[in-house]
């Protein structure tokens, strides 16, 4: 990952903290994610994501030493093989696409472009787009702000608001779509987990 403020500027110590903070923010929210998913899905999002990020924490030493593209590839492969279900494939696709596009020393512009490619990979994998009560409802506005020069404060705020904005949406994708009208009134768990990760990443880059 690169700094939304410009330049990469991540040594192994900061990379380690970034990975650990993102992982812990997801693991700590496992119960909340499961409760959200129980309301409109199959109720396994928290446990699945927790399993994935615990696997990442278990490999923290090796991951911290990797250059950005290799790190993203390793995270994608890990999530893909441990999370399971649609979210494993979606987050796996996100990080694998990020790995493909991210240069070893990304600039802000190249990081934003890589983020855009990663969001496109999620679009393609989920056959979905903005406004369908999915993680894309968070990823797409974040990408827009990232690409147009917004700072970490703006990105954090947008991610949080975007996750909340999924509450009144009628789900037309995934398991939640089976509920029809009853999907209205609940936050999408994938949007929430995406917002959590973005928040943890921004917190890291805001600490200067």
């Amino acid at each position: 990952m690169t700094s939304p403020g410009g330049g990469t500027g991540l040594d192994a110590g900061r990379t380690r903290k970034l990975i650990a903070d993102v992982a812990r923010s997801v693991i700590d929210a496992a119960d909340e994610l499961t409760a959200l998913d129980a309301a409109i899905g199959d109720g396994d999002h928290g446990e699945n994501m927790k399993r994935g990020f615990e696997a990442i924490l278990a490999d923290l030493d090796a991951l911290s030493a990797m250059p950005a593209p290799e790190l993203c590839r390793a995270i994608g492969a890990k999530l893909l093989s441990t999370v399971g279900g649609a979210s494993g494939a979606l987050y796996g696709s996100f990080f694998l696409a990020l790995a493909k596009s991210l240069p070893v020393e990304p600039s802000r512009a190249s990081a934003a472009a890589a983020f855009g490619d990663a969001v496109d990979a999620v679009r393609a994998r989920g056959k979905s787009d903005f406004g369908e009560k999915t993680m894309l409802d968070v990823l797409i506005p974040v990408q827009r702000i990232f690409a147009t020069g917004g700072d970490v404060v703006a990105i954090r705020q947008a991610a949080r608001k975007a996750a909340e904005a999924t509450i009144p949406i009628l789900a037309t994708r995934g398991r939640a779509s089976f509920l029809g009208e009853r999907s209205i009134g609940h936050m999408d768990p994938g949007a929430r987990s995406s917002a959590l990760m973005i928040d943890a990443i921004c917190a890291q880059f805001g600490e200067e």
Partner: protein
Amino acid sequence: MAKVGIVIVSHSPKVAEGAADMVRQMVGEEVPLAWTGGNPAGGLGTSYEAISEAIRKAWSEAGVAILVDLGGAETNSEMAVEMLPAERRARVVVCNAPIVEGAVMAATESAGGSSLERVRAVAEELSAN
């Protein structure tokens, strides 16, 4: 002549195995067949790695048709197909069909020596109405 392989991917290992039993009852050992169900921790769900392994097991030069149940099974199966070596990728399809009926119809068609295209079409006819 090689017959199209069938892969059954359910969130539940019991559903996948049961569907596979029904396929075997129809076509015996004539058709390469593999099934998988459950997430990487063994609970209900699907696993990309297990699906990739099932595709390898049921591999046939004539191709492989995958039958899935709910969303995650489809998403993970499509991911598994895309990660295959290029020469295999074009010969594996995820069918838009009900899992049990689709698997039985697809396997029966395969046993008759039909092409991957035809096997898929027969399975997908079940979703047409």
